[in-house]
């Protein structure tokens, strides 16, 4: 069953900004990653899902209800984490969480205490004086505390340190096991890779792909930089891979599915250093979609 359905929506802000004929859906119990570089239209899409803006054309529905006209009904089962978090500055973190809970018509704070512990959040200070990471944690607590069926998260890990990013991934995975439907936007592929079943990729407001993570990953390349003990080794190694670049004792190599081969062959020599750089999302798009730029 489709929980979130985006049906050929267009929201044109002019100058190539906005979203154009976007069409994908999220099934019940599925975690979908919504990937794209900054300014690709992720937030514009999410605003339409929340009923803040209306599409010029097309429809957006959650649980079969129109996102604009039935926003209040949808909100009963929705948890939302905004991309640019703005709270009410004059409140303390705890006051805000209590306020948000009452606004959501919750009887108590729900899962908030448990979540605050999980994210090591002390919310007693004034929000105005909090760091980006602290605010992000409050946002996460507010999105998950009512234990909603559907979660829409706009760049949920921004501002979090690596430890907390891991905690967040654990949280998503456990929510997934509990059957929640999650739409999560990100510009970091790894984050999506670790948590999502499928990903929708958007660029310049247009959908470029919706596919399973495995499929998307198979098109992905890594750059391996191997430093050998001697230049001869590097030369010998580089000969085995036609596209490898050799520079002194270093070999620069693009690997995709042949990673196993590359590692095993390197094992025949003395490796003094190894550096693996993953493609940025932008590079990934260029590679995966034939390298053509449409601007």
């Amino acid at each position, binding site marked *: 069953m489709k929980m979130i359905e985006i049906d050929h929506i267009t929201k044109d802000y002019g100058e190539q900004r906005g979203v154009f004929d976007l069409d994908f859906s999220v099934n019940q119990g599925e975690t979908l990653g919504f990937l794209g570089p900054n300014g690709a239209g992720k937030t514009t899409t999410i*605003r339409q899902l*929340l*009923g*803040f*803006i*209306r599409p010029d054309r097309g429809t957006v529905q959650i649980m079969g209800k129109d996102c604009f006209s039935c*926003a*209040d*009904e949808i*909100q*009963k089962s*929705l948890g*939302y984490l*905004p991309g*640019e*978090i*703005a*709270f*009410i500055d*004059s409140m303390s973190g705890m006051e805000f969480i209590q*306020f*948000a809970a*009452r*606004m*959501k*018509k919750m009887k108590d704070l729900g899962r908030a205490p448990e979540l605050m512990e999980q994210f090591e959040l002390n919310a007693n200070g004034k929000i105005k004086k909090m760091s980006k990471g602290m605010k992000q944690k409050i946002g996460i607590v*507010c999105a998950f505390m009512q234990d909603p069926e559907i979660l829409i998260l706009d760049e949920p890990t921004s501002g979090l340190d690596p430890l907390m990013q891991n905690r967040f991934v654990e949280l998503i995975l456990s929510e997934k096991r509990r059957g929640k439907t999650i739409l999560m936007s990100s510009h970091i592929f790894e984050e999506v890779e670790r948590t999502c079943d499928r990903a929708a990729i958007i660029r310049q407001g247009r959908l470029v792909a919706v596919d399973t993570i495995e499929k998307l990953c198979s098109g992905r390349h890594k750059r391996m930089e191997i430093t050998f003990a001697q230049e001869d080794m590097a030369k010998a190694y580089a000969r085995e891979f036609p596209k490898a670049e050799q520079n002194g004792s270093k070999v620069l190599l693009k690997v995709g599915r042949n990673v196993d081969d590359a590692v095993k062959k390197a094992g025949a020599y003395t490796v003094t250093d190894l550096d693996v750089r993953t493609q940025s999302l932008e590079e990934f798009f260029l590679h995966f979609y034939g390298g053509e730029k449409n601007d």
Partner: protein
Amino acid sequence: MINRTLYQKEWKTNWILLIIFIGVLTMYAVMIIAMFDPEMGDSLRIMAASMPQIFAAFGMADVGTTLLDFVAGYLYGMLLIAFPAVYIIILSNRLVARYVDNGSMAYLLAVPEKRKNIVGTQAIFLFTSLFVMLVYVMAVILVTSWFMFPGELAIPEFIRVNIGMFGLWIMTGGIAFFGSCLFNETKLALGMSSAFVIYSLLIQMISQVGDKFEVLKYITPFTLFDIDGLTAGNGRAWIACGVMYAAGIFFFVAGIEVFKKKNLPI
């Protein structure tokens, strides 16, 4: 219809603003009443005679001899219009446009409540806080008058003037609230409400200075608040008063409707 959590939150956030304004108004009200002196001839009148134009601009020309005339002339002609107008400009901006401008409106709307009810709560908050201000100001004037000059103030006329003044507040409030709902940026919302108030007041002041400019009174909505007419209880003044209430309610409703339908950059 209204969201109680939000309504309470607004009281918690904005009570200080109300206290400041009613504090200032208390000071003026007590001071003006204290200057009234039925027997000795009053000092303000002497001052007024020394600079008639300035006093006229502030609606303080030809102030009569009763305590009601005195209070109506010196308080209701300018002070009780200008200060509450500033309060309305600040508060109406805080209630809607500021939440949209800084993005926290996302949290007010990501709740199981219709947009209409969220923004309606804000309209009702503005209305009730103005009503509290009105009741308080009336109480201060009544108590001070009773304490200093028992039996001097004509109560029914005084109440009629206040009904008219509240109409003017509601009209100003409605227009400012409409601006707050219409614009996504606080500077535009503040600009619209301030422009309305400054324009209306300035034209009113100029129109009162002399016969030459009297015709200008037809282009400022504040003329609808006809103090003398209300004191005398004449029909035209009541119609004008009704127009202010109607305009105020119209703009409140229009603001809510605009907000319900608009795209929000949050």
